[in-house]
């Protein structure tokens, strides 16, 4: 039962693309827990490691050579901002996982700089996730996760790990950085899964 605060009217909204508890921004806020890691492209590598330890790796040039997609998606941050119709370019996880043989149900994502986040493998498949390296027609800026970040727009944006380095495929689920600090295991914005127990 919400408490009504007299005098508060709010600006109101009618956009059904905005999940509950969110407000729209036009700019692109930056949130991260520490300094921005900077990885030279000639030393950059992205890997997928299966539950049996088999590793597939791509250099920057190899990633660029893969077929790219240009998704336009709405994004939602747990700190309440949403941004509609953001345009990206990157490689679908369907492409990257195509030749990976796994029985894993879960993924622990590792970033340059040590950040981690976890999600079910199925949330990376079927056109729902990308390793993105362009935003709005420009190379992805370091403070937004460049040179490349995960993009999983249907979950709160902390799951879209910046500076993505490695996907660890796992048979069991294991919480990542924010998930260990009280945030929700899954993070569906439409169900307001912000904190553990939501």
């Amino acid at each position, binding site marked *: 039962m919400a408490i009504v605060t007299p005098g508060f009217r*709010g600006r109101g909204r009618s956009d059904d693309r905005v999940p509950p508890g969110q407000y729209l*921004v036009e700019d692109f*806020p*930056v949130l991260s827990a520490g300094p921005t890691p900077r990885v030279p492209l000639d030393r950059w590598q992205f890997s997928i490691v299966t539950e049996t330890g088999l590793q597939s790796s791509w250099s920057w040039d190899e990633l660029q050579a893969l077929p790219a997609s240009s998704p336009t998606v709405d994004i939602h941050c747990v700190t*309440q901002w949403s941004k509609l119709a953001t345009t990206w370019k990157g490689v679908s996880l369907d492409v990257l996982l195509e030749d990976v043989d796994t029985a894993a149900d879960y993924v622990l994502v590792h970033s340059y700089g040590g950040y981690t986040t976890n999600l079910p493998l199925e949330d990376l498949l079927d056109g729902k996730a990308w390793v993105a390296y362009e935003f709005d027609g420009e190379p992805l800026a370091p403070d937004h996760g460049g040179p490349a970040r995960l993009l999983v727009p249907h979950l709160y944006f902390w799951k879209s790990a910046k500076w993505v380095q490695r996907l660890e495929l796992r048979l069991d689920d294991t919480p990542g950085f924010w998930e260990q600090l009280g945030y929700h295991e899954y993070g569906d914005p439409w169900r307001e899964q912000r904190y553990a127990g939501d």
Partner: protein
Amino acid sequence: MARAALRGGLSVAVARRWLEARVVDARAETPTARTLVLDVPGWPGHLPGQHLTVRLTSPDGYSAQRSYSIATPDSGARVELTVQLVPEGEVSEFLVTGVQVGDAFEVRGPVGGWFVWRAEDPAPLLLVAGGSGIVPLMAVVREHRRLLAPQPLELVVSVRSPEDLYYAGELAGLPGVTVVHTRRAPEGSGRPPARLSAPELAAVVARLPEQPRAYVCGPTGFVEAVADALVALGLDPAEVRTERFGPS
């Protein structure tokens, strides 16, 4: 089991309830920022550096949520926020210019388990704030003083002009405080207005006896510059915690 144990220490079970917060006092910090003193029965307590979510609901059922840093250390049901007026900000505008002592709204929290200070951490403290980024760091400063904590502490605050400094009276009497003005310095200041420089940061770091744990809070550009400078000075990136305010 490890996961359950980890979770057990986080008070997340209480964090998910909305609680009634009544405004019991309010004061202006600057022409565009106001401190609200809230009475929140059932507040579970918090660590310096944490924030909470405010939910305002209008008589027609519309509601809006925003997060605000907590300005004071834990003191039972009493929680203080300092809210900066954001142009076009529907919640900040109401909290800075609209809400009256006696009014109530809802809060949920505390939130955030990373940008926090635990008094048992022996590392020296380096706190660097840009503008309204002082708010969560002030909770650290106040807790440090309340406990007479032994860790060396240095606070650097960057503001555009003297009128933009929050908690000016309280900060004026404290040791280990450096105020930097970027646009207009006070009368008689020996430092021309300029952005906080890497050598100035280096001088502050040099006053600390060993590698500090750093907390940097402010607008994105400020936090990027300071965090990069601290890493360039040799601080371990894992010891530099950041919280950034987007312009929105």
